[in-house]
C-alpha cells in the first residue's frame, strides 16, 4: 500500500494496516520467501558487486586490458606486504621485481628486490576513456602510487594476479573480460526472452497451426545436441566479421537453443491460466482481451518467466566460455573469460603459469551465484502455494 493512497483517502482509520501479512502484495510475499534462502541472499549482492566492478572495469582495474609491460612477461602474482623486513608497519606495498635467470635451467622468473612500491586507492595510472567515450581520465581505484611526474608502464609495477606471456596484467584483463562475459549472458537472455515469449505466447494464445509449427520447431531443435550445434553455428560466422557484430550474433546463437525452454513454459502457463477460474472471472466482469492478458494473466506468470530466465543464465555463461575457450566463439583481441583461458590449454602451460587459471574462479563464482539466485527465485516464485 502506497503512501499516496493513504493520503488520497482522508480518513486513514478505514484502512486496516495493522497486520502486514494481510496487505502484502505478491512481490512482498515473494521477497519474504526469497529472504529465507540464505545462499541466494549472499549471491545477489556478490553478483551486483561483480557487475558494478566489471561495468567500470577501467576504473577498478589497475591497468588497461591490452596494455603490455614488456619487461614483465609471465610474472607471478605480486605479494602484497604490510610490514617491511624490519617489522615496521608501512601500509600496503609491494617490492619491486627483478628478473632472475636460473643458472641451471635457464628459466626466467622474477624475484622481489628491496625497492618498496607503495599501493594506494584512487591513484593515477594509464589514461582511459570513461565508458568508452572521449572523456579521458587517469584515476584508478587502486594501484601503485606513482611518484610525481612518472608515467605508468615503468618499473613501478604491481600485478595482483600476475601477467600473461605478453606482459599484460591478468587481473585487469579478467575485469575487462568480465564485462564481456557477464553482459554477454544478459544480451543472450534478452534474445531468449524476446524469441521465447513471442513464439511461446503465440503458440499458446493462437493454438491451431501456429501452435503445431512452434511445437515441431521446438522438437526439432531439442533433437540436435546443443553444444555441437552452437559450435557449428559459431564456426559458420566469417572470421572477418567485426567484434561487435560477432558478439551480438554469438549471443543470438546461444539464444537459438535457449528459447525452446522458455517458449514451453510460456505456452504451458498460458494454456493453464486461460482455464483458471480467476481469468474466466475477469472475462465475465467484462474485461477486454488486452486487459485479461496484461492485467490478469501476465502478472501471474511473470514470476515463472523470471525463474526460467534466471535458470538459463548459467548455461549461457558456460556455453560462451566453452566456445571461446575452444576458439570458436569470441576471439582475441576481444577479451572474455573464455578467451583468457585459452592461454592455459596444455598441462605444461598450466604448470608454468598457474595464475592464468584465475578467470576460472570468476566463472565458477558468477555461475554459482546465478545458480543460487535461480534457486531462491524458484522457491519464491509461487508464494501462494
Amino acid at each position: 500500500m502506497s503512501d499516496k493512497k493513504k493520503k488520497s483517502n482522508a480518513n486513514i482509520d478505514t484502512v486496516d494496516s495493522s497486520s502486514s501479512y494481510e496487505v502484502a502484495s505478491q512481490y512482498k510475499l515473494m521477497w519474504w520467501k526469497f529472504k529465507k534462502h540464505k545462499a541466494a541472499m549472499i549471491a545477489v549482492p556478490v553478483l551486483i558487486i561483480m557487475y558494478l566492478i566489471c561495468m567500470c572495469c577501467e576504473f577498478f582495474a589497475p591497468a588497461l586490458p591490452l596494455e603490455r609491460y614488456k619487461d614483465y612477461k609471465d610474472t607471478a602474482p605480486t605479494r602484497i606486504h604490510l610490514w617491511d623486513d624490519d617489522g615496521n608497519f608501512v601500509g600496503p606495498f609491494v617490492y619491486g621485481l627483478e628478473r632472475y635467470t636460473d643458472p641451471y635451467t635457464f628459466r626466467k622468473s622474477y624475484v622481489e628486490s628491496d625497492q618498496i612500491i607503495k599501493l594506494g586507492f584512487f591513484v593515477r595510472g594509464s589514461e582511459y576513456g570513461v565508458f568508452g567515450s572521449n572523456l579521458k581520465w587517469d584515476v584508478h581505484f587502486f594501484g601503485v602510487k606513482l611518484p610525481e611526474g612518472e608515467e605508468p608502464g615503468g618499473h613501478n609495477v604491481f600485478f595482483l594476479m600476475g601477467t600473461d606471456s605478453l606482459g599484460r596484467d591478468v587481473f585487469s584483463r579478467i575485469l575487462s573480460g568480465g564485462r564481456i562475459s557477464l553482459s554477454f549472458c544478459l544480451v543472450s537472455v534478452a534474445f531468449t526472452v524476446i524469441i521465447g515469449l513471442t513464439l511461446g505466447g503465440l503458440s499458446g494464445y493462437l493454438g491451431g497451426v501456429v501452435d503445431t509449427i512452434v511445437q515441431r520447431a521446438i522438437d526439432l531443435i531439442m533433437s540436435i545436441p546443443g553444444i555441437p550445434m552452437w559450435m557449428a553455428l559459431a564456426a559458420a560466422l566469417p572470421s572477418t566479421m567485426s567484434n561487435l557484430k560477432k558478439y551480438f550474433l554469438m549471443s543470438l546463437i546461444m539464444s537459438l537453443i535457449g528459447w525452446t525452454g522458455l517458449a514451453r513454459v510460456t505456452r504451458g502457463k498460458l494454456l493453464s491460466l486461460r482455464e483458471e477460474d480467476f481469468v474466466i472471472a475477469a472475462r465475465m466482469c467484462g474485461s477486454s482481451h488486452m486487459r485479461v492478458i496484461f492485467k490478469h494473466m501476465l502478472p501471474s506468470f511473470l514470476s515463472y518467466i523470471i525463474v526460467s530466465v534466471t535458470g538459463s543464465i548459467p548455461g549461457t555463461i558456460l556455453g560462451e566460455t566453452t566456445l571461446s575457450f575452444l576458439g570458436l566463439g569470441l576471439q582475441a583481441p576481444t577479451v572474455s573469460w573464455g578467451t583468457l583461458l585459452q592461454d592455459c590449454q596444455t598441462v605444461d602451460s598450466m604448470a608454468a603459469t598457474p595464475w592464468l587459471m584465475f578467470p576460472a574462479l570468476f566463472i565458477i563464482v558468477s555461475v554459482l551465484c546465478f545458480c543460487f539466485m535461480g534457486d531462491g527465485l524458484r522457491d519464491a516464485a509461487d508464494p501462494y502455494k
Partner: protein
Amino acid sequence: MLLNYILKRLLQLIPLLIAVSILIFIIIQLPPGDYLTTYIIQLETSGLEVNQSEIINLTKQYGLDKPMYQQYLYWMKNIITKLDFGRSFQWNQTVLSLLQQRLPATISISLLSLVVTWAIAIPVGIVSATHQYSGFDYFFQFFGFIGMSCPAFLLALASVFILFKLTGQSLTGLNSAAFVNAPMSWAKFVDMLPRLLLVIFIIAISQTAGMIRSMRAMLLDELQKQYVITARAKGVKEKKLLWKYPIRMAINPQVSTIGWVLPGLIGGEMIVSTVLSLPTMGPLVKRALTNQDMYLAGSYLLIVSVLTVIGTLISDILLAIVDPRIKFGGVSE
C-alpha cells in the same frame, strides 16, 4: 499394445529426422564459399596438383553444380543408399572412414558416462531425499551446485593439472605415448583404463549434479503422496515400501530424461575429448569446424542428432514399459 505404440512413435520420427537433416544441411552451407573452391584452395596451398578429373568426379557424385535443394537430395541419397557421408578435404579421406575410426570410441564413452551418471545420481538422490537436511544431503547439494557451475572443459583442465602435480604424469590422450600406435593388448588396455575412467567421470559430473537435484526433488515429492501412506497403513516394511513405491515413481521421470541427458553428454564428450585430445570425434570435429570442413562436421551433427532422437525414442518406450498409464493410452485425471 506396446508394439503399436512403438510403431506409432517410429512413424512420427520420420518427419522429424527429415527436418533435422535439412536444418543440418543448411548449417553446413552457411559458411561463405562452397565446398569445391575450399577444397581446391586447400590442395593448392598444400602444393598438391589439382586433378581436374577428380574435381569433375566429385561434382558429379555430390551434385555440386546443381541447385541447393538438389545437392541436399544428393547428400541424403548418398547417405541412405551408400552410407557415403561425403569427403573431408582436410584429411583427404571419405568421412565414413574417419567416422569408422573414431565414432565407436565417442559413442562408447558417451554411453559409459550415461551409466556412470545414473549409477551416481540415483543412489545419491535417494539417500539425499530420505535423509533430508542431513550432512550427506548438504554435502551433495553443495557438490551439485559446484558441479553445475563448473564448465566441463575447466573440470578436465583442472583434473589433468592436479593429477600432473600429484603423479608427474600428463594424462592427456587415451594412451600414454608408448602405446599410441601399438595394437590393442592387455597392457594397452590397462594403460588406457585410468585415462578412460577420468574422461568418463569428468563428462558424467556435470550431468550428475543436475540429476541428483531432480532425483532428490522428485523423491521428496513422491514421499508425500497418499499411496505411500496407504502402503504404510498396510504394514509394509519401511525399506521395502520405499523401494517398491516412491523410488520407483521417482525413477520413472529420470528414465524419460535420456532424451535430454544424451545431448548434454555428447556435447560434454566433445569438449572434454578436445581438451584432452582423445582419439575420438571431438577434436576432429572441432578442427573441421575451425577449418570449415563442413561435410565432416555436418555428418557428425547428423549422426549425433539421430542418436539423440533414437535415445529419446528408447526412453519413451522404457517409460511406457515402466508406467502403465502411458501404455494404455493417456494419463487420466
